[in-house]
């Protein structure tokens, strides 16, 4: 499922926090200022942050720049993994998957949210949102397993559709060329509903006066959608894009299970995270594994950092 903090809150968070600290701080300051009990309240969390956020990141940095004996080797681990014949194919796989998935996510989530929002009958719209959201309960391995069934023509509920597309066996379905689309469909199926609900909430937030005014000026429903609702959704779309991009680079469970279910027709080093896993557990090369993890972590950190610091994108309503 999508763990989505609403981005309104996200921006309200730090900025408002700072503001109220400055504004309210003086008034309430005397009552709260630096009560030592605060340290008791935050220290367990701070400890977890250090032990499971900061130290592992730093340790990965150390491992990535050293060899198995602990000697400093500069960028050797990075050149090693990048020169690995499996590295660029994995980058390529993940990239294609991301392109398909993100395009599908943006087009269909926004489209469905607009359409569901336009439905006047309350229970119909609520039911639709619920049906779209329900697959979110199946995450990770469970949803992949379900899709193994759907994609296996012998048992599939859509075997007619599969054979119409020329697929008569499971191995035919999971040819390498189809995999990015398959992973994108699985990810979309599981995660789209959460985003549809978030977009729907954002659409509800657009003031009715604006829409009314546009209508009175003669805009039809399509024009309202394109010229008013869509621009106002832009920040949410950007948010969805950033989050999904970061999550998508981590592709692991889908190819891992498909590899297992296909007798390695799908290779077990299909994605970057799988390659890192292979380094750690097949080759016992923790330094190489750390180098790949670090590359992925840097991508995720950059995306997250851009989002947090350039929150300005989200502050102007």
């Amino acid at each position, binding site marked *: 499922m999508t763990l989505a903090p609403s981005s309104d809150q996200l921006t309200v968070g730090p900025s408002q926090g700072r503001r109220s600290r400055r504004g309210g701080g003086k008034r309430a300051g005397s009552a709260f200022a630096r009560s030592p009990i605060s340290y008791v309240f935050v220290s367990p969390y701070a400890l977890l942050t250090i032990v499971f956020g900061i130290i592992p990141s730093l340790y990965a940095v150390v491992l990535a720049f050293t060899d198995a004996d602990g000697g400093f080797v500069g960028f050797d681990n990075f050149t090693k993994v990048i020169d690995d014949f499996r590295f660029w194919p994995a980058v390529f796989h993940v990239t294609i998957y991301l392109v398909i998935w993100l395009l599908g996510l943006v087009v269909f989530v926004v489209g469905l949210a607009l359409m569901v929002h336009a439905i006047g009958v309350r229970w119909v719209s609520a039911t639709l949102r619920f049906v779209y*959201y329900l697959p979110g309960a199946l995450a990770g391995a469970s949803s992949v397993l379900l899709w193994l069934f759907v994609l296996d023509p012998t048992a599939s509920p859509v075997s007619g559709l599969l054979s119409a597309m020329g697929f008569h066996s499971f191995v035919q379905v999971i040819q390498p060329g189809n995999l990015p689309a398959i992973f994108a469909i699985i990810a979309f199926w599981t995660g789209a509903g959460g985003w549809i609900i978030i977009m729907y909430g954002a659409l509800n937030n657009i003031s009715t006066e604006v829409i009314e005014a546009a209508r009175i000026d003669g805009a039809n429903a399509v024009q309202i959608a394109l010229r008013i609702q869509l621009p106002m959704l832009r920040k949410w779309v950007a948010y969805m894009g950033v989050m999904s991009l970061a999550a998508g680079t981590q592709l692991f469970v889908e190819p891992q299970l498909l590899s297992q279910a296909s007798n390695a027709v799908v290779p077990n080093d299909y994605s970057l995270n799988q390659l890192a896993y292979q380094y750690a557990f097949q080759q016992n090369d923790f330094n190489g594994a750390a180098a790949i993890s670090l590359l992925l972590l840097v991508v995720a950190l950059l995306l997250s950092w851009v989002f947090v610091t350039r929150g300005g994108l989200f502050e102007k309503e």
Partner: protein
Amino acid sequence: MAVLSTERRRSSLSGWSGRSIIGVLLVVFILLFAVPIVWLLLAVTKSSKALVVDHPFSPGSWSALVANWHQLFDFQDGAVTTWIGNSALYAIGALVITLVVSIPAGYALALTEFKLRQALLVLTLVVMLIPSTALVLPIFLELNSVGLIGSPLSVILPMSFFPFGVYLTYIYFSTSIPRDILAAARIDGCSGLQVFTRVALPLAAPIVALVAFFSFVQNWNNFFLPFVMLPSSDGYPIQVGLTSLLASTPAFNPSSAGSDSVQLPTLALGTIVSILPVLIVFLFSQRFLVAGMTAGGTKE
């Protein structure tokens, strides 16, 4: 009312063809989202032969469901029961620690002042937005160097680190509890601890429920972390256990045909069993959950 008039407007302008295209699209996506789930629910009531031969959406029989049930729970001498127990232990253990750690932390970040407060807040935001899988291998390398791999703690502790929960709590306390109430409590002689336990905590029930929900669902569904941390089948949570079931399914792994093999309907039942707790939580908390997810979208 506004919705109705928009509707009328559209019908006059875009005509019935536009409406029917929208209708068709909505139905296509209903099918996409619902068909696999409906099929899965029916599949577990069939024998493996019926699953292949019968119509995909025909119901099976009670006896076939019972047979599948027995095959699933007899698998490797009741491994499935162990895995579900493990999942419950990990998910609930981490949930409890998350709550004990996050609620006070969110409160302190929102309503009190201390050194490094701003730094911790920014760090929370950044880590929250990193996919949790990005830190799994680094945490593995770290825990491996201290010899914790294979222990339940190697999954419970990393899962209890839940910056999103702290963030939600922070937002809740900074927006819904007036500082004046807390100031009044201080003036009336409450200590810092008493302000938290007597004033803030009783008002925190909604946020505790929300954090608990997100934490539980994420912990239960977590795959990569336990997959990496727990080498032995005895320690698997059900999500990782599913890979063992899959490996013993001849339909997907021909080399596994043997006495302990798993048939397709049994694998389907395993899939349902693996998500049942989350599904139940979803169904019962839908209204509240949707409200929580869109809270920012509907509030000023």
